[in-house]
């Protein structure tokens, strides 16, 4: 593994690729879905080759989303799925984003806010997949189930698309030096010490152990 002066590697290539396949398929499904939902946005289906094509693109991107969602859940289950001591305090202090906090509990690879986002993606992502599968074969289900599927699909999009905007802000301009963790994986040691000191500590221990 190549090394960079003053940097640590936050994510490996598998994590980054899985993340972007999930993100890309969600965004594509989101825009094809919005294109079908808002008739004023017919520009989207027009560019993509019409509403019939968009229906199948939406279904296909949903399949990609489903598979990458499962991969993300398995991949980050330990790091992002499990809340640990200190996460509660992190949440009560709003991560230090809204007012000045002196004693932030040290975060691991993911902080409590990222874990909340992870769980939103898990719960509403799975809801999207299940309701989407129902909608593909909608006539095989009782009409009550089918009607709820359409409604819950839209509700899940509302929740995830809204949360996504916060995710994008905090992953880019809201936290300078963060985006590169998901682009090429390397962050500065200062960044890691500030954002995820517990992870940096474990990371250094692991690297030292490998050297001995």
């Amino acid at each position, binding site marked *: 593994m190549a090394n960079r002066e003053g940097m640590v590697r936050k994510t490996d290539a598998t994590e980054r690729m899985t993340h972007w396949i999930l993100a890309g398929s969600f965004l594509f499904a989101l825009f094809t879905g919005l294109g079908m939902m*808002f008739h004023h946005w017919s520009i989207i289906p027009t560019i993509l080759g019409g509403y019939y094509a968009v229906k199948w693109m939406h279904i296909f991107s949903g399949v990609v989303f489903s598979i990458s969602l499962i991969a993300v859940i398995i991949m980050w289950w330990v790091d992002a799925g499990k809340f640990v001591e200190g996460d509660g305090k992190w949440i009560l202090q709003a991560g230090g984003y809204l007012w000045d906090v002196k004693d932030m509990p040290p975060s691991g690879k993911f902080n409590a806010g990222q874990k909340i986002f992870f769980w939103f993606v898990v719960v509403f992502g799975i809801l999207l997949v299940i309701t989407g599968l129902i909608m593909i074969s909608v*006539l095989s289900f009782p009409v009550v189930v089918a009607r709820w599927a359409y409604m819950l699909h839209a509700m899940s999009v509302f929740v995830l698309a809204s949360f996504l*905007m916060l995710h994008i802000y905090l992953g880019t301009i809201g936290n300078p030096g963060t985006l590169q963790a998901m682009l090429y994986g390397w962050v500065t040691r200062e960044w890691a010490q500030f954002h995820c000191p517990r992870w940096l500590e474990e990371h250094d221990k692991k690297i030292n152990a490998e050297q001995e």
Partner: protein
Amino acid sequence: MAEYIKLIDTTKCTGCRACQVACKQWNGLPAETTHFTGSYQNPLDLSYNTWTLIRFDEIDVDGNIKWLMRHDACMHCEWPACVKACPSPGALVKTPEGAVVHNPKYCIGCKACMIACPFDVPRYSPEKDEIAKCTLCYDRITNGEKPACVTVCPTGCLDFGPKDEMTEKARARAEEVGGYIYPNNPKYETHVLYVLPGGVDMKAYSHLNPDPKMPATVLWWKNLFKPFTLLGMGGVAGLAALHYLIKGPHEVEEKPSKGGDADGE
């Protein structure tokens, strides 16, 4: 353009099925091979190629069999749930005449209309991957003709005319036979009205929704979560921008660097 209503006076229906045949003929719909199932119901249900049919129900009246015969087709809702649910512009259209018309050219076969419809009317063809249903003979009524089914009805069970005239006729006939008008929901009007006889439980009619209305899930889907998706995305993005302007980005606190990665030292 005048609004029209198709009036179905079930007290005059003899179950001759001329309306079924006329519908097939005018709309060029092929016949279906059917089998006897112990009932006069034939075909068993609406389909992609059967846009109207007579529903036969048998009820027990003082030990005798009594037939209930009901001409069933699209109800042409004033605020159609199918149009609200349809994702493809032009695939389902509510016309000024009151007819709700599907256009196969724009239908993408998503079946959302079938789920939304409170009367279970649109039917899907897997081969064509599109839906079809009664159009109130839109091509006829916009040319001064009555729908094909109405034209051939021999007993006067089916009638078609301006909204006010038909509403008044339905009211008078319901009073005359001691029956009632269906649907009777001022919040969910239709351009098809029934006169149903009194003394018969509405539940005895198969495939008749006793309380037709816009499904609540469709309202939540289209009136709530649809706009909320944009409001949510825009709102959160706006709050993020405010946070950036007021509080500023979460800069990493400057600390003396420990040098490179541990394995590089």
